[in-house]
């Protein structure tokens, strides 16, 4: 579709009574943009101003302080290198797995999908502690086993979780999951006619996949890369537990230990710029949208490839993912949660249900689970609704400056949770919002979550829209539908899977969020993540108690998935 066509859609040529009517569609779209600006730009303004001002006057003094500090500069370079590694590796590894799930007869698809979802909602700091038990260089079970098997005399290694490689190993499952949730829905929507045409023209199955299928889902692959990259820039729990010098850790130190808000604001700005560069790269590489449209006026049903023996190779890769991301860490979590003293090992007299009893009997934890569920569903739904509307503006209208909305959505994503939490709190306590008394409420936590994760809504919906030809909605408009009707009856049903993917993904991401929540939470608004921290930290805390809660959450989430599947199966039968 040309810009001229878009312009004609943006400014309908109809005259007469319709022009005088209140344009609900326009108001809804403007409201969506306002919400986007409110949750992303507004909280960042006060903090960004502090980076470039001193007592009200403009200055580059804080920027100079950053540039002159080798530790901070190194943290910025480390962040770029680490995030790039995660982004690239996630996209590359997710591509074949996503293709296997969406378009082949690969076995164990459900195991891989469920593993991906669990890896996103698993609390990073607990998984890291579990992996220290496995890959700690001194006493990690796998290292002890390897030393025995290889006959090594050393008491250190051979593997070391406290390394760049360890950081990548722990972060990669989440990155792969993000990419899977971008690429799988896109692969499922490809018009089989395009691939059939390639096969008829004499191309082999592999050539068709390489030359037709993968190029068509390039926006989804790049989108997965950008999300994995940007989220890694802001990632905190795992790097902090491993003692890595990255921006999210130095921002927290600068904010909470050194109390240097101006310098923290500079570091936050650097994080944001790193994230925005990735978005700009994405915008550039996908600028010709029509090249990626794969759903036109024809119906589509994904064709499935028969892989032969290769199906087991893909399934094997899926099993490796399951073992590394879920089985190994959760085995440590679950077994340890039943041990009174972890150092005494798995013996009958060391087993206890104490840590679970406490969870079930104390209403504090039930409230935490309820709050987290509410926030997960609320944030997921809000990100999906606002994301679809904003994504529609970017992909389907000629609104001036619409591409800026994409950048706007990504502003907070690259920020560590601590920095964005402080930014939101500063906003909540600034006039005129102060009188609303938002501090410590679920609302302010949800507000921060939506701001931080709205990029998933905007990005996911754009990927979906980029695959659907605008001809469909043009036809609806010509038939007299207004924009909301077009979105509701034409666009949303086609991209339904992508919307559900956004809701689940954002919900899963929100669930373990800690660094923002701990700054924003108040009495009665505890979440699963803050409750986990309470169970673990301090004199009365223990890792077993935190493991027990995490295991309980795994059971609840798996139960919800089973119930969801049963409902869907029942509907299908009907």
């Amino acid at each position: 579709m040309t810009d001229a066509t878009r312009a004609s859609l943006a400014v309908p040529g109809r005259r007469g009574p319709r022009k005088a009517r209140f344009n609900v569609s326009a108001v809804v779209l403007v409201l969506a943009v306002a919400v986007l600006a409110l949750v992303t730009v507004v909280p960042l303004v006060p903090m960004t101003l502090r980076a470039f001002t001193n007592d009200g006057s403009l200055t580059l003094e804080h920027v100079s302080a950053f540039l002159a500090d080798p530790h901070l500069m190194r943290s910025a370079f480390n962040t770029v290198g680490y995030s790039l590694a995660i982004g690239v590796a996630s996209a590359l590894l997710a591509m074949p797995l996503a293709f296997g799930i969406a378009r082949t007869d690969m076995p164990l698809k459900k195991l891989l999908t469920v593993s991906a979802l669990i890896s996103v909602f698993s609390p990073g700091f607990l998984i890291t502690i579990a992996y220290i038990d496995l890959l700690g260089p001194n006493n990690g079970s796998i290292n002890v086993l390897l030393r025995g098997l290889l006959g090594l005399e050393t008491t250190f290694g051979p593997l070391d979780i406290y390394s760049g490689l360890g950081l990548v190993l722990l972060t990669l499952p989440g990155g792969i999951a993000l990419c899977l949730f971008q690429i799988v829905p896109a692969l499922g929507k490809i018009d089989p006619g395009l691939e059939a045409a390639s096969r008829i023209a004499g191309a082999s199955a592999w050539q068709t996949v390489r030359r037709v299928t993968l190029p068509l889902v390039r926006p989804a692959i790049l989108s997965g890369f950008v999300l994995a990259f940007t989220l890694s820039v802001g990632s905190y729990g795992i790097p902090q537990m491993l003692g890595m010098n990255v921006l999210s850790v130095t921002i927290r130190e600068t904010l909470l230990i050194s109390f240097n808000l101006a310098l923290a604001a500079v570091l936050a700005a650097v994080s944001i710029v790193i994230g925005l560069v990735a978005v700009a790269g994405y915008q550039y590489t996908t600028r010709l949208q029509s090249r990626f449209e794969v759903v036109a006026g024809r119906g589509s049903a994904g064709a499935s490839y028969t892989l032969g023996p290769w199906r087991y190779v893909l399934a094997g890769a899926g099993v490796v993912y399951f073992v590394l991301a879920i089985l190994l860490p959760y085995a440590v979590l679950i077994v340890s949660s039943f041990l009174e003293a972890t150092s005494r090992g798995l013996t009958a007299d060391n087993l206890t249900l104490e840590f679970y009893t406490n969870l079930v009997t104390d209403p504090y934890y039930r409230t935490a689970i309820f709050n987290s569920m509410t926030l997960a569903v609320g944030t997921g739904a809000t990100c999906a609704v606002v994301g679809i509307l904003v994504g529609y503006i970017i992909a389907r209208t000629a609104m001036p400056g619409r591409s800026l909305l994409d950048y706007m959505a990504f502003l907070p994503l690259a920020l560590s949770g601590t920095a964005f939490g402080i930014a939101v709190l500063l906003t909540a306590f600034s006039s005129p919002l102060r009188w609303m008394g938002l501090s410590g409420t679920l609302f302010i936590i949800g507000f921060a979550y939506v701001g931080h994760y709205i990029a998933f809504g905007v990005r996911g919906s754009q990927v979906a829209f980029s695959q659907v030809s605008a001809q469909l909605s043009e036809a609806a408009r010509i038939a007299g539908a207004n924009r909301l009707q077009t979105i509701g009856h034409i666009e949303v049903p086609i991209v339904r899977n992508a919307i559900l993917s956004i809701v689940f993904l954002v919900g899963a991401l929100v669930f373990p969020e800690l660094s923002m929540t701990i700054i924003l939470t108040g009495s009665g608004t505890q979440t699963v993540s803050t409750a986990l921290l309470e169970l673990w930290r301090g004199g009365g805390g223990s890792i077993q108690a935190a493991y027990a809660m995490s295991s309980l959450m795994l059971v609840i989430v798996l139960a919800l998935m089973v119930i969801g599947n049963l409902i869907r199966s029942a509907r299908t039968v009907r």
Partner: protein
Amino acid sequence: MSPRNVALLGAIAVALTLSAPPPSLSQSGEPLSVLSGLDRENTEELLQAYQASTGETFEYEVQAGPTEDLIAHLRIELASGSSDVGLLIMAIPQLQLLDSQFDLFEPLESVSPDAILDTLSFDGIAETVPFGLAVYTLMYNTDKIAEGDKPTSFADLLDEKFDNQVGLASPMTSANVWNVFWFLTEEMEGEPYGWPFFEALQERQPTYTSGHGALRDLVISGERGIGIQTTDNIAAPMDRGESVSYSFPSEGVPTSVWGAGVPAAGDNAELAERIVAWLLSDDGQDWVVNGANLVPVSAGSDYTFKEGTRLADLELKLTDVDYVERERANVIRQFQALSR
């Protein structure tokens, strides 16, 4: 799921979010609002123990969490003049820092300095009152470190036999460990102390953890044989039968002092002051020991640690509060230079 169902789900979710409990600020003047760096359970036990001991009944709201995060939240509240916190419980240096910046606390006239150990005593009327101590020890894993090899001084940690064995909290993420940094770089003189101590320790490849909880688990798991750890983090694992024990460093014992303060502008100031005074009573000190796993501060106490040492036999080293404020940037810079 149809688009209509998705919309319905979204509407329910938004309604749930908006139906969040009313903000705490609207409850001004009602329950006692307590901000605590101790565990939530411990803090609630404190308030319940006070009620049981005195017969008073009142409602309370406890906000517990890592001290650094609580302070970040509180500073923003205080800067905007919106705080209704009635009672603060955290380490004394942090309380005094807040007081110096915001002139926060009410003088507590009912608290007598005679009730507490001489080393903690203050002149005149207190604004922040110490009620318990977290004493730094050399925690070790008994499966990894033989009784004869256990370290008994900070200097012992520089021995080559402890390569890859030592852990301590990072001053970049933990405020409490500043006690250790102050003691070894400022208080101790001569070799091997001062910053050269940490340079030499760096050659033993120590692990710096995010906090004392992470350090506790590293030592329990045996991943690190030794941790510079506070007693309150060791008591519960020892009670559960974990393979850990501790010794006190012979150079002197850096000590983190836990205290309470009553914000002048907070609700329920009189009640909060009564609670602080009660903390120094026999019942209060009993909670300090058995509830919070801290060391009592009462002058008449003859407290003995789990491993047999008497409190009276230890040379407690209390951090110079001014040092924390004055040397903050310098310590962070020196530490960063070390870990390069």
